[in-house]
């Protein structure tokens, strides 16, 4: 008998999770929504610059097809094409929906939505709400989900951390195991389907542009339970961030979209190297290209500002009033954290780890992982961005992915049969409680925060802009050493109530396991494509490497096994990527 009121568990309340929740709620599902931070504080609030949709409101002849072409080309032909095309076709409707929800998008004098330019395109395609677009979009979806919460259809579990999936004897996902971040109670939850929307993995790189909650711990736990992880080696390094002690704060691409120029002094004069090297796209070349250019200017040509790893991002030629309306949010960040006024002095920036193109493998249609009953959407999955994501394409992929995952999970749930025995739930709870007990009993000498620092340093040094096989081999050896040392750590704080050191230490293990997927994926891929650049293999190699990396965890060996899958290139034949 079909299940008339299916129950979904959604893990993650960023844009992707909220979009899934909203679309599933509309189809009659009951939803339990889990998030480590209150939903409204999810990392999506950080998104600054905007969201892409080929609305063609600037008389430029833009179209979803051109958006699709830019996205595939920008991703160096590694993305499966049909789903990307669907996303680009859906994007204008997504903007309309957000507009109806009350997102205060910037407007033209005629009262229409305003659009700005972003990297990797020649069109004005990016809708924006000042320079805090992600915040405004997240709030809009949060408000709509709150409506369903008010009607009793959605129940939130905020300050709960997903630990693992509950899989039955046939490997079907029947629910999740989670921990209350206050009482530290471990509990299992049964459901007809589960959607994972846990976002990015920045913490694996120590410092990044991401929020603290972006640990990738959930994705890693699932990978260790048998979910395939795809294209892990593709890590986006954003060209312009403010170096910081705790975080590398992004200076959005919108700064360049609104006319910002990147330069360093050379022979006593400003040298606009991006404009010189890439006359067609100028400062708006895609991120991987801009990042490598800055790297070259600083490390090969020795032209970093005052010998430091930094270049100028200059807005001072733009009228202050215009800057305030369009970029106020990010100027405020620079002022508050650096103390200078970017309307008057050029900002000092440097590349920073920003985004993972890789993530949980999902199929080409339904956002379904290889584990039946388990779906994924948002930054935690791999579908939309190939080898390099274009700016302002993530927000749209999160909302689009959620809009697919929600309804397909409901459909799956309606057709699914009830979970059989309670045993898998008991077993999973026991397994997680044992992990907790071991950690509480740990008396070794290793300090988890020190291990984390070394992890971050290793990953940033060897798994970001430039990849060299010998270094990657050494990096993986280091990761194995860190995993070994993890087993000898001592948890000093044994408090059994809202214990942050405990939570962090648990996540750290998963970060280390996922780091190996990134590192070994990069080691294996002997070519350069998008964000993955190996000087020893400087060209894209379609004959051998136009394929998706799939990592699956081998429990006996305690490491990833890599295999490959063809990319669906049925719509656009690959062509050389030159800007």
């Amino acid at each position: 008998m079909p299940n008339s009121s299916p129950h979904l568990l959604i893990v993650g309340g960023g844009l992707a999770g909220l979009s899934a929740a909203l679309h599933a709620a509309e189809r009659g599902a009951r939803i339990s929504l889990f998030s480590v931070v209150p939903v409204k504080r999810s990392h999506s609030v950080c998104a600054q610059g905007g969201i892409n949709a080929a609305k063609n409101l600037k008389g430029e002849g833009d179209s979803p097809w051109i958006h699709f072409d830019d996205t595939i080309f920008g991703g160096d032909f590694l993305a499966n094409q049909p789903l990307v095309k669907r996303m680009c076709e859906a994007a204008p409707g997504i903007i309309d929906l957000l507009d109806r929800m009350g997102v205060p998008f910037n407007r033209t004098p005629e009262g229409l939505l305003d659009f700005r330019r972003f990297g990797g395109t020649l069109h004005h395609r990016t809708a924006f709400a000042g320079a805090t677009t992600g915040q405004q979009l997240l709030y809009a979806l949060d408000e709509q989900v709150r409506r369903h919460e008010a009607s009793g259809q959605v129940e939130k579990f905020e300050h709960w951390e997903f630990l693992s999936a509950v899989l039955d004897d046939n490997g079907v996902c029947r629910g999740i195991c989670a921990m209350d971040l206050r009482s530290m109670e471990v509990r299992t939850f049964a459901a007809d389907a589960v959607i994972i929307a846990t976002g990015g993995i920045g913490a694996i790189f120590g410092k990044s542009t991401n929020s603290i909650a972006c640990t990738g711990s959930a994705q890693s736990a699932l990978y260790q339970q048998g979910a395939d992880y795809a294209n892990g080696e593709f890590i986006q390094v954003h060209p312009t961030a403010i170096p910081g002690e705790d975080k590398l704060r992004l200076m959005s691409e919108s700064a360049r979209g609104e006319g910002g120029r990147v330069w360093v002094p050379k022979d006593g004069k400003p040298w606009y190297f991006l404009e010189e090297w890439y006359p067609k796209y100028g400062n708006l070349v895609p991120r991987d290209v801009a990042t490598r250019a800055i790297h070259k200017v600083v490390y090969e040509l020795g032209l970093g500002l005052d010998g430091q790893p930094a270049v100028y991002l200059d807005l001072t030629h733009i009228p202050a009033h215009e800057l305030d309306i369009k970029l106020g949010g990010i100027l405020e960040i620079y002022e508050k954290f650096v103390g200078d006024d970017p309307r008057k002095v050029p900002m000092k920036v440097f590349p920073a780890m920003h985004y993972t193109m890789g993530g949980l493998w999902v199929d080409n249609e339904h956002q379904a992982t290889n584990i039946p009953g388990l779906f994924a959407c948002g930054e935690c999955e791999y579908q939309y961005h190939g080898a390099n994501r274009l700016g302002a394409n993530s927000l749209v992929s999160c909302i689009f992915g959620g809009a697919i995952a929600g309804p397909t999970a409901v459909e799956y749930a309606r057709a699914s049969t009830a979970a059989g025995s309670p045993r898998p739930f008991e077993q999973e709870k026991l397994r997680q409680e044992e992990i907790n007990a071991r950690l509480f009993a740990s008396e070794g000498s290793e300090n988890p925060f020190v291990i984390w620092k070394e992890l971050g340093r290793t990953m940033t040094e060897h798994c970001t802009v430039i990849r060299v096989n010998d270094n990657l081999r050494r990096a993986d050896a280091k990761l194995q050493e860190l995993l070994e040392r993890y087993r000898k750590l001592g948890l000093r704080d044994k408090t059994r109530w809202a214990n942050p050191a405990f939570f962090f230490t648990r996540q750290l293990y998963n970060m280390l396991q996922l780091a190996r997927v990134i590192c070994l994926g990069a080691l294996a891929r002997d070519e350069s494509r998008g964000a993955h650049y190996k000087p020893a293999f400087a060209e894209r190699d379609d004959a051998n490497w136009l394929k998706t990396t799939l990592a699956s965890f081998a429990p006996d060996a305690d490491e990833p096994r890599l295999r490959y899958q063809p990319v669906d290139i049925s719509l656009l034949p690959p062509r050389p990527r030159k800007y």
Partner: protein
Amino acid sequence: MPANTVRLRIKRQAGPQAPPVWEEFEIPYRPHMNVIVALRDIAENPVTRDGRPTSTIAYEANCLEEVCGACAMVINGRARQACTALVDRLEQPISLEPLHRFPMIRDLQVDRSKLFNDLRRVKAWVPIDGTYALGSGPRQSPQDQEQAYPLSRCISCGNCLEVCPQYNTRTDYVGAAVINQVRLFNLHPTGKMHRAARLDALTGPGGIQECGYAENCVKACPKDIPLTDSIAAVNRQMVGHLWGKALGR
């Protein structure tokens, strides 16, 4: 005190029932430190100034760029975000306390769920019919956008509630942040259609009449939201609304 260290006094509380205690820490100074960096340094090696090992300090934080609202606490007597509290600009010892007007969880971590529940109470959303394709939203002038956007930047940090003499668990007052959201949604061309329901939600216990015009809120807001204007605007709407109801309109 050597200039190359940072001193902090932190009010600790092991749990909701536990008695508060103050602990002092002294950690190496680094340029461009903020309070979050200091708390992280302490987490790496939680030892007090007099050499006593202690537990890790619990606090909330996420984005570290003052847009998620998580890391609000009372720093040198002032409610603010820890990420934008730069050590160079703070007098030492830097004192850290939890927000006082919310239920205690642990140390600097409190339970601000009332804020989110109150957003539900006042129906802080635009009532759309559904996510299916219904064309674009209503046209709006850039001037309207420039009025709405600043109101929409509230990060639910709770600083405005912390400094409000009327905000306490007794009266159930919703506070400035939530009233500001009512103003925001009552401005929106579609949101307006729920105007009466929102105003109704602001009458009765905990409603807008609890405001005592202390005007502390507007000074505490990290996002410069014109909170007193918002309260005044909603009050004006309320007068019309209540007259309308009284006259049976």
